[in-house]
Every structure is written in C-alpha cells, then in structure tokens.
C-alpha cells in the first residue's frame, strides 16, 4: 500500500488548494453584476429551441431503412472469420443471402425510399 501514499498526499493537497482559492476569491474579490454575466454559462452555440421539435418524416424513413440493412452485417462477420474453411459452399450461401438483400435494396430504391427531396 505504501506506493499509494504520494497519490493520497496529492489528492489532499489538490483539495485544500481548490478550497482555499474558492474561499479566497469570494472573500477578497470585488463583485459586479450585469445581465449577461448572470446568465447560466454555456459553451458552443446559443441554444435555439427545444430538442423535442419535430423532424421531417424523411429522416425516420432513412433511419428505419438504415437499421434493417445495417443489422444484416451481423451475419457477415462470423462468416468472414471462417470464410476460408467454408470454401465454395460458404461463398455461394453468402452470395444468395446478399442477393436477397439486393432484392430488398432494389425495391427500396425503386419505390423512392432513398430520395432526399
């Protein structure tokens, strides 16, 4: 446990210094108030409106279509790991699987699911 003593000392020192600084500045500093200064501090862009606003339905469509095709990749990973051992059979099986996905993709594109306007 001995090797942790310096860490403990550093922790205590850090806490003490922070406390002393904070109290010293409230005790000794001069205070001026202004409207801008009293606002809660935020970094980055000023907030504009609630995050619960509505999005265009197009985003849902794109997101939903993305999820479906994205998750199918889960079958490609284990296949890729043993790709060499599976040989031709595995290759053809995966080709068929991807072909079915392509059917879905063509349908999606033709129905206008990916048009952004």
């Amino acid at each position, binding site marked *: 446990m001995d090797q942790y003593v310096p860490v403990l000392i550093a922790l205590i020192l850090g806490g003490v210094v922070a406390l002393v600084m904070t109290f010293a500045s409230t005790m000794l500093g001069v205070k001026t108030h202004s409207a801008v200064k009293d606002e809660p501090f935020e970094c980055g862009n000023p907030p504009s409106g609630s995050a619960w606003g509505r999005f265009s339905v197009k985003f849902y469509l794109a997101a939903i279509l993305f999820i*479906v095709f994205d998750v199918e990749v889960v079958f490609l990973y284990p296949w890729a790991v043993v790709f060499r051992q599976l040989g031709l059979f595995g290759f053809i099986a995966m080709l068929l699987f991807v072909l079915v996905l392509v059917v879905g993709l063509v349908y999606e594109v033709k129905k206008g699911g990916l048009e952004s306007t």
Partner: protein
Amino acid sequence: MVPTSYHLILSGILFTIGVTGVLLRRNIIIIFMSIELMLNAVNLSFVALARHFGNMDGQIIVFFVMSVAAAEVAVGLAIILLVFRGRETVNVDELNLMRW
C-alpha cells in the same frame, strides 16, 4: 469467473423490468423500448448459457434475435408513426376506436 447463475438472474431481472414496463407504462414508445429490453435480456441468457455449455447454439441465436429485433423495430416504428399521424397521440389509452 462469475458463475452462470448470476448472469441468468440478471437476465431474469432485466426481463421482469421489461414486462413491468410493458404492463404499466402508457406511452407507446416506452412500451416498445420495454419490449426491446425483454428481447435483450433473453440475449444475455443465451450468451451466458452458450458459455456454460461450451457450444455455439446460444451465440448463433443471438445474431438471429438481433436481426429479427431490427426488422421488428423497422415495422413497429412505421406503424407507430402511422398511428401518430392519424390520431396525434402516443398514449395507448386513447386508442379506443373499437369498443362494443
């Protein structure tokens, strides 16, 4: 090593939380999230059991459950959206067009 029973108990607790959520909450989206929690609790069981038995069945089924859940999400969100556009509500208690 953490014994398998711990995982199963955790999975049981998560599943129960999901069931409770479905039964008690009234917001469709939250009900839906609870259902997803149930499915993922079961996934935890499968993975724990697969390690326990040392066979792959349990891990493979998790892949299938994940993709099925994704398909379910796609269809489910579309249906929720359809209902919301027609009724302007996501509260299941207000969906009562059909009563005898």
